[in-house]
């Protein structure tokens, strides 16, 4: 006998074994396809989830950089005159355009356990929203003694801001970066700049670029 004859003799095995392989391999193949579809679907779903959550995660990470353990008391102000009482005389926030005719809401992030602001130097960050008439609301974020440069902030946040939209200009001796990006309420225009060692971010969903430039110019002059 030789291998060739053996291969021919194998041809005559019981029909049951021939059919067993054909039918079971079809079933196994179908199961394999289903499993692959399931695996790829899961991977695709995870990918979509990651992409959808990316802006949220970036915001959380960026916020976490400021909200360290020693800055977890928030003192709120709902009136600009009240806020002015605690702001230093040279604060840029005193120059917010037309603020007397607007409603404000401010959050001052202070060290843990702070009851009242006695020394403004202890304030780490301010979040401020200024609501004007005609549904225009401008948001300010000011981080005091911030080491991060505005340019770095704008360019590192490529997922939040369209890289091609970043524009740089100098207003009243301050280098200002403008960028367009997306936020929870749609498209926003943002201006970021370092001023006296602090970093300011100003953004608005209702402004176009020109209006934003005009607003920041008024703020810095």
């Amino acid at each position, binding site marked *: 006998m030789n291998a060739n004859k053996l291969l021919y003799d194998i041809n005559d095995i019981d*029909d049951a074994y021939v059919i067993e392989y054909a039918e079971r391999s079809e079933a196994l193949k179908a199961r394999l396809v289903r499993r692959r579809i399931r695996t790829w679907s899961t991977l695709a779903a995870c990918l979509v989830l990651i992409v959808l959550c990316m802006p949220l995660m970036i915001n959380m990470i960026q916020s976490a950089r400021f909200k360290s353990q020693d800055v977890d008391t928030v003192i709120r102000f709902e009136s600009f005159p009240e806020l002015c009482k605690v702001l230093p005389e040279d604060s840029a926030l005193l120059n917010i355009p037309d603020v007397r005719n607007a409603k404000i809401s401010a959050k001052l992030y202070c060290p843990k356990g702070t009851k009242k602001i006695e020394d403004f130097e202890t304030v780490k960050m301010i979040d401020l929203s200024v609501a004007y008439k005609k549904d225009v609301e401008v948001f300010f974020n000011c981080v005091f003694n911030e080491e991060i440069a505005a340019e770095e902030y704008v360019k590192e946040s490529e997922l939040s801001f369209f890289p091609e939209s970043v524009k740089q200009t100098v207003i009243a001796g301050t280098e200002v970066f403008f960028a367009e990006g997306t936020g929870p309420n749609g498209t926003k225009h943002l201006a970021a700049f370092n001023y006296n060692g602090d970093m300011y971010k100003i953004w608005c969903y209702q402004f176009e670029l020109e209006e934003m430039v005009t607003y920041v110019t008024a703020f810095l002059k």
Partner: protein
Amino acid sequence: MYFNRNESAIGETAKKYGKYCLTISENILRNREDAEESVNDAYMQTWNSIPPVKPSNLRAFLGKIVRNLSLNRLKAQRTKKRGSGEYDLAFEELEEVITSPQSVEELVEEISCRDFINKWLSTLTPEQRMVFVGRYWYFDSVSEISDKMNYSVSKTKMLLLRLRGELKEYLENEGIHI
């Protein structure tokens, strides 16, 4: 339909089992055109065989004809140089099972070891049988079998090696050896 000599039987057979037959033939011949010709020949042979033959399972019956015709066609086509199809690889693997082809061939050429193979196959687990039949009846590649069985390629290779050893031992015990 075959028993009524209804000519659409061939068309219906091709529709139902065409892909199955073509896969078997292509595994052996590694050539689409040759495989199609073998499958067409198989349809004709089936038409000529039924009746009087009454196969218990048309699929297996057809598969065996296709396999046989494809092996014959390959045998006729083969030059001195061996090809690289699954047939050649399976052939080389099974040569290990046969201890001395020349001397045994002279002695037991007329003996078909079909019954012994069937008996041996019945001693295997369904999974072992699937791997053996897939490789040496259907000439599926090792990676295809691994995919179908959800085994790694090395596990399939190891299983095939063990099965060849067991078959060799079984055939020798049944007197098919030097």
